[in-house]
């Protein structure tokens, strides 16, 4: 636990060591704002005059699709590139401490970015009487989904020493996890694939599992989905590092 905390602190400080972190956060907040107010029409007819953040949370999967790969790409690729992986792995720590410490730092960083969207919450509170419980649940759900994205990103980052490759591959895999639940792609599949297959594919989608969470409904099945996804990819992350340390 203490070792994990040391890794966590170093990693988190690594994010803020360069101005890149601040640029990331600003871009994230700008995009969150644009998506919510412009495309999501928080004030418009789709909001149906309700004071809620459904339009805001609804865009989060797409926001994370661009944001998370950029956050996770450096986690292990950078260690490989600079050779510090050899240093880290010969310190008296276990693999799971290293993997979890780094993952939690990235998750915490994302959490900071997410928290900074609070003016949106302030806005709807000023305009009406939103269901604060639903909003808190929405934030928690969004953070948990971000963890799912990040675990995928961390795992992919451990495969390469090139951060750009990590970024692109993570983006593609996350895109698959989103599109597999998108109505258009499901319609396309339904034309020829058996129903079981369509259901299986859609059950892997972040969209399907986040939908309830974004409305403020915390369903255990959705939580189990995201947490088992994280466990799977972080386990794979450790396994990849174990098997492929040197190059």
């Amino acid at each position: 636990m203490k070792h994990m905390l040391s890794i966590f602190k170093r990693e988190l400080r690594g994010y803020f060591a360069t101005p890149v972190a601040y640029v990331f956060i600003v871009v994230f907040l700008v995009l969150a704002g644009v998506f919510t107010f412009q495309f999501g029409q928080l004030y418009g007819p789709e909001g149906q005059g309700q004071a809620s953040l459904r339009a805001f949370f609804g865009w989060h999967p797409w926001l994370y699709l661009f944001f998370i790969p950029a956050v996770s790409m450096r986690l292990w690729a950078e260690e490989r590139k600079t050779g510090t992986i050899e240093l880290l792995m010969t310190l008296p720590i276990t693999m799971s401490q290293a993997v979890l410490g780094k993952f939690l730092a990235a998750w915490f960083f994302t959490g900071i970015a997410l928290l900074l969207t609070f003016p949106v919450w302030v806005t709807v509170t000023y305009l009406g009487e939103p269901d604060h419980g639903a909003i808190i649940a929405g934030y928690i759900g969004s953070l948990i989904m971000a963890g799912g994205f990040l675990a995928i990103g961390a795992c992919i980052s451990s495969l390469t020493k090139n951060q750009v490759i990590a970024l692109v591959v993570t983006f593609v895999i996350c895109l698959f996890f989103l599109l597999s639940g998108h109505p258009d792609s499901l319609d396309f599949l339904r034309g020829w694939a058996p129903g079981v297959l369509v259901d299986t594919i859609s059950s892997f989608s972040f969209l399907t599992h986040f939908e309830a969470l974004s409305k403020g409904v915390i369903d255990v099945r959705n939580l189990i989905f995201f947490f088992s996804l994280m466990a799977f990819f972080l386990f794979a992350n450790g396994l990849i590092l174990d098997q492929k340390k040197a190059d």
Partner: protein
Amino acid sequence: MGAMLEIRRLSKAFGSFVAVDGVSFDVSKGEVLGFLGPNGAGKSTTMKMVTGFLEPSGGQVYVCGKDIAADPVSCKSALGYLPEGAPAYPDMTPAEFLAFVAEIRGFGKSEAKRRIEEVVRKVHLEDVLAKPIDTLSKGFKRRVGLAQAILHDPQVLIMDEPTDGLDPNQKHEVRELIRAMATEKAIVLSTHILEEVEAVCTRAIIINRGRLVFDGTPAELEQRAPANVQKNRLDHVFRSLTSSDTQAAPPKPEVVNA
């Protein structure tokens, strides 16, 4: 005092390529073992296995009597390791970096401070403590790596080319440092500079194509050179041990090249 580092029939294969093939040796307290061999002979791979970074394909490593495969964390606690090229987090300053290593090594705040001050003095890092490692010269980076390796006063110290890329003054300083630490530690250092072996090592082993081809004192190594060779006697032995395709082939006479 038994051997603090025991290597037993260590081997490593990458696919069909055998990088290290059945290497065995012991290092006791007070010994400075020079680990020699041409580039690509398997020196770094061996060190990576000894320090628990790479898993061997076969064989065992015992650090202070403990099997590194069975108890990696306590073995790694007893080890200090300077990897090849002295990697360190480029965005940190030496002060932050050493504080991080001290924290991982389990030292409390005051103990960490005392130890960091001590190694900083030993390797002369005072002037660059607050500069990002990224901006440091090769010599300073190497010293940061060295500081990190000796911070916890390890019983076994393993260094992969500790003087590579240093100027003659810095080389001299590092060798002095190694000599000063030699009595209380078991030290292994890899190098391809033969003068270094004579300067600091009490024992030398030579590895070629993954196999151990010599294990003895630097003096014994020198004696292997034919009597008619006057200059660079160690170079001559090194070449004869490592350049031939088969071990049995006689060394080429030095006269031809002279």
